[in-house]
């Protein structure tokens, strides 16, 4: 295990940024800390780096307690959200900085520094920018230089704070894949912070979902998406429809439909929250046994390969979102204003106690 975090809490004045957080980062993995702003993910990253000290709890690197080790001795590479490149130094000097500030006896010779810096600049494919200054670079280039600079000190772990947060959407996608490839090449244990679930799902080996200073769920992207552990995770990852439901003897009632929920076989008329992903909503012209509600089609957006429908329930003011493939949409021929039936294909149910927790 590269990084172990044990019962870490951090308080800023009255605000509890981290509340008894424990978490393991296996060697060589790329882990995402995912959560809304203010959930404590950046505080946790800074505590791992040693830029903040926790009020209680410990951090271990490779089994060694580093909670009170100085930042300089932790051998971490840190990539800042806004890159934090030294604006008055060339790209080359930026990358060389970590080597040049070493004490004389461990500092490499000038020729060795040159070799290492050029090697890193080649790794991030920006060797041709060595003599430029940071303000002359694009956002994506700055981000890659920041990464090269962090790698120059041969860190044991690499930490990235919202690494793609300040970039354009298309640059962000490119860099995401590039970072993933780079990680597969270097296999350095890495932790990155993000509020973008798509980014976490695409890049990370493992995702830590955080909310209000606590860890909600730790798992692979597939686990997080398919088996969310809490209503929060369900709502935070991907779009979702929420229905108020009653669960009885292993069946959840949503509108007129009854869906099997095996894990709640012993529930007795329990109030529950039922979550259905938009792509798990089937639309039919005529009702059948699975149909839940009659709805009116409000808007139809075509977004790439999917067609997104906004459906208005006739009994309530709530809106249901549904996603169809283009083929299915063509088959159905629905128009705005049409009246159709929806039937959830699969559902995830959280009993009432979860709802109370959610509301708190």
């Amino acid at each position, binding site marked *: 295990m590269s990084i172990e975090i044990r019962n870490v809490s951090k308080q800023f004045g009255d605000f509890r940024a981290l509340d008894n957080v424990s978490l393991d980062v296996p060697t060589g993995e790329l882990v995402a800390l995912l959560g809304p702003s203010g959930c404590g993910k950046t505080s946790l990253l800074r505590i791992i780096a040693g830029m903040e000290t926790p009020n209680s709890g410990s951090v271990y690197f490779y089994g060694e307690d580093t909670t009170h080790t100085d930042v*300089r001795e932790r051998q971490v590479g*840190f990539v800042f959200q806004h890159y934090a490149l*030294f604006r008055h130094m060339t790209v080359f000097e930026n990358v060389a900085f970590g080597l040049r500030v070493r004490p004389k006896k461990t500092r490499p010779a000038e020729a060795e520094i040159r070799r290492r810096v050029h090697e890193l600049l080649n790794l991030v494919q920006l060797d041709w920018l060595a003599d430029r200054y940071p303000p002359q670079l694009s956002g994506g280039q700055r981000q890659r230089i920041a990464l090269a600079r962090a790698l120059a000190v041969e860190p044991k772990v690499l930490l990235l704070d919202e690494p793609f947060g300040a970039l354009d959407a298309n640059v962000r996608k490119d860099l995401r894949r590039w970072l993933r490839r780079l990680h597969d090449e270097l296999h350095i244990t890495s932790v990155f912070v993000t509020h973008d679930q798509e980014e976490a799902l695409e890049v990370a080996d493992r995702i830590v979902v955080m909310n209000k200073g606590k860890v909600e769920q730790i798992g692979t992207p597939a686990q997080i998406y398919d088996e969310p552990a809490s209503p929060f995770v369900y709502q935070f990852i991907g779009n979702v429809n929420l229905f108020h439901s009653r669960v009885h003897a292993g069946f959840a009632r949503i509108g007129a439909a009854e869906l099997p929920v095996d894990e709640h076989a012993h529930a007795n008329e329990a109030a529950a929250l039922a979550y259905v992903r938009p792509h798990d909503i089937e639309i039919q012209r005529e009702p059948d046994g699975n149909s839940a509600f009659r709805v009116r089609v409000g808007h139809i957006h075509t977004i790439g390969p999917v067609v997104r429908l906004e459906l208005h329930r006739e009994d309530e003011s709530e809106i249901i979102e549904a996603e169809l493939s283009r083929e299915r949409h063509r088959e159905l021929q629905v128009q705005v204003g049409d009246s159709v039936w929806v039937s959830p294909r699969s559902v995830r149910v959280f009993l009432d106690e979860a709802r109370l927790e959610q509301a708190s």
Partner: protein
Amino acid sequence: MSANNRISSGITTTEAPWVRKLLITVALLWLALFLLLPLVSVFTEALRKGWETYLAAFDDPNTWAAIRLTLLAAVISVPLNLVFGVAAAWAIARFDFHGKSLLLTLIDLPFAVSPVIAGLIYVLVFGLQGWFGEWLSDHDIKVIFAVPGIVLATLFVTFPFVARELIPLMQAQGKEEEEAAIVLGASAWQMFWRVTLPNIKWGLLYGVILSNARAMGEFGAVSVVSGHIRGLTNTLPLHVEVLYNEYNHVAAFACASVLAMLALVTLALKTFVEWKVQQNIELSREQASE
């Protein structure tokens, strides 16, 4: 349609041409009358009786003593303010602590308090009848009516310049670069010399220039603590006043012209530094947008 026309002709967004011309003329006349004219008169008065008399003013050893004392006060107070200013700006821009706003107010105090009052405070504290007066005279240390008092008064009035210049700059630049240096293994000293100082150097120079100008030109505070001992505790501005009161107009204006030239050099330096800072900003903006 008519609304479009009005916008494109610009009538709604700017004043009529005659209003603009009038305002500019008034402003220029004002500047000429109250800034340019006095400056010119300093030099004409000084040279009224020709170069010979002008230069003769500098034969007086008291004039040279005044120039030396002025330079001494500046040479001591400017570096001290540089160190204090950087330390104060760093503390305020980088850390949160109790009493931060109180510290900010204290830094501004010399701007708010009349220099004469500042001088009087020093007399009250260090003067013969003051709080430490007895102790100081027992140990044969003279502060008031001596050089230390003049340096102290100069320090007081020039204190805010460097800090005031650096605080907004350092706040705008943020602490990420410094944190990056630390994570990369730099010691606090290396971080300061290699990252912090290069980032604030122009702002720092600007503050030093302003602080220096004030140090050399200060009258009120220094006047109170000086005691006007000729050749010993008269700075150049005080010396000008003494000469003027003795109806020695040419010598007074000759010394004043030295101060005026100093002001012109300061202005030129200040403009150059401002231009340099602006150029840096524009350069990085241009290149960023490429």
